[in-house]
């Protein structure tokens, strides 16, 4: 099977990046996993660019603004919103491939398939309330700048509170991943990563007061509900992208414990990480 395939591998070309990519496409037994991993890396880059730079929806604007100020915000960001979210609509399906890779990590563990299935289903639904509702409603808002300001603020609240206030999917999803890692005997991830999942789950508890407060540290743009949560989420994302990469490098397509990285794999890995920095 896979060992026969790896046994017959032609030598990896060095040199041109394009030739290396072609080699992986043709011969790399892990190409499916790498496609999913690169999808994840590219998605988060685009996500950051579109939400922080193009649409200016992150960090979020003030929840305490009067309707007139909200209308002004829509005016200032009109084309950023309309164009930025058009790109969000194009790339939103990438999340399915990313979720597949995370579900695969649980399938590779010694735990029941129920964990991978649960995660896949929970995160399949997370994009709609957690991201697309914001993009759709803000597009609707930006399309007609002359709408009644009260209605514009109705849309504005709808957009930002569904984005921040969809908590359960990420809470339960992270807990499912955490329990799977804690029970796993195949050493797919280090146990400390389970607790980082717990931190990510707790950010969804911390964000709940945004449903109540319109200014201060607990508002939807507050120091606690936004800045700390984003700091945890960014750390969490960087860590799981790194750990998933190590998982793919270690993958032996067996069912037992994942082998540790060999010394030269580890070296190549750290070299790449340095290059990436």
């Amino acid at each position, binding site marked *: 099977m896979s060992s026969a395939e790896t046994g017959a591998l032609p030598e990896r070309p060095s040199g041109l990046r394009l030739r290396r990519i072609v080699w992986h496409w043709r011969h790399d037994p892990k190409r499916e996993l790498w496609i999913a991993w690169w999808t994840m890396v590219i998605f988060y880059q685009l996500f950051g660019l579109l939400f922080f730079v193009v649409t200016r929806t992150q960090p979020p604007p003030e929840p305490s603004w009067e309707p007139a100020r909200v209308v002004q915000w829509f005016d200032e960001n009109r084309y950023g919103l309309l164009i930025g979210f058009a790109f969000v609509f194009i790339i939103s399906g990438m999340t399915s491939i990313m979720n597949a890779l995370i579900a695969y990590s649980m399938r590779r563990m*010694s*735990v*029941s*398939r*129920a*964990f991978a*299935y*649960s995660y*896949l*289903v*929970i995160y*399949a*639904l997370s994009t*709609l*309330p957690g991201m697309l*509702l914001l993009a759709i409603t803000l597009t609707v808002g930006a399309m007609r700048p002359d709408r009644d300001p*009260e*209605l514009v*603020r*109705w849309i504005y*609240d*709808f957009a930002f*509170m*569904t984005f921040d*206030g*969809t*908590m*359960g*999917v990420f*809470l*339960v*999803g992270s807990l*499912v991943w955490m*329990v*799977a890692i804690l*029970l*796993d*005997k195949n050493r797919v991830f280090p146990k400390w990563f389970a607790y980082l999942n717990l931190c990510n789950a707790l950010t*969804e*508890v911390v964000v*709940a007061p945004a*449903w*109540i407060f*319109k200014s201060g540290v607990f508002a939807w743009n507050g120091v606690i509900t936004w800045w700390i949560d984003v700091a945890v989420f960014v750390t969490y994302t960087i860590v799981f992208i790194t750990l998933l990469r190590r998982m793919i490098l270690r993958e032996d397509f067996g069912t037992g414990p994942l082998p540790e990285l060999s010394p030269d794999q580890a070296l190549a890995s750290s070299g790449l990480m340095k290059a990436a920095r």
Partner: protein
Amino acid sequence: MGVLGTRQADGEIILLWTLPVLGLIWLSAFLLFPGFVRPMSPRMSAEEVAAFYRDPENLARIRYSMILFNWFAVGLIPLLALIALQIRRMAHRTPIFSYSIIACAAGGPTIFLLANLFWLLAAFRPERDPELTLLFNDLAWVTFASQVGFPIAQSVIVALAIYLDRQARPVFKRWVAHFNLLVAAALTPASFVGLAMGGPLAWDGLLTFWVRNVAIALWIAVMGVVLGRAIYRQRDEEGATA
């Protein structure tokens, strides 16, 4: 048989026992929400609906109960994944029914989460124009009441899977299939909620509110018990063959 016998089942018991805890949370949130204990009527005027959200005592209970639902409604999904795994053990030729359940699993919780967001939004800025609060309130109630499609499909799929599980010791007993069809029937009238402002079909009515919600609660409780039995029996059998 050796390799197949050591099926990966770690963690299923943990996922199963989250259910009674979640059930308790769901029940408390249901009782805490002032709009459920005496369900709000669709006949309420915009001013009455706005007053309902502006009442300080109501407001806190609306927010806390809906935040609880927002956190924990999705917790139902691991239970559905466990049901899918039990259906996979049935004497079927293909995994069609277990795949169907997996594909269906996101439906119910996602739609409930949408209704939940509308309620929370109505409570977010209760001082807004009453007509706009009414709009959020209508969106919440109609989303909550009318969206029975995925739960109906889920019950019918489980029933079909059980009827076709033709083996000496089926995974679930026959009555579970009959029960699922009964639940599917009990959920159906709620889809007509848009036609009635009062009476049994209205969103606060006997059929749409009480029959439908009791059917959903019963389905979760009964499926939790039969699923638990099936999982423990499976563990005993596999322990015996190992």
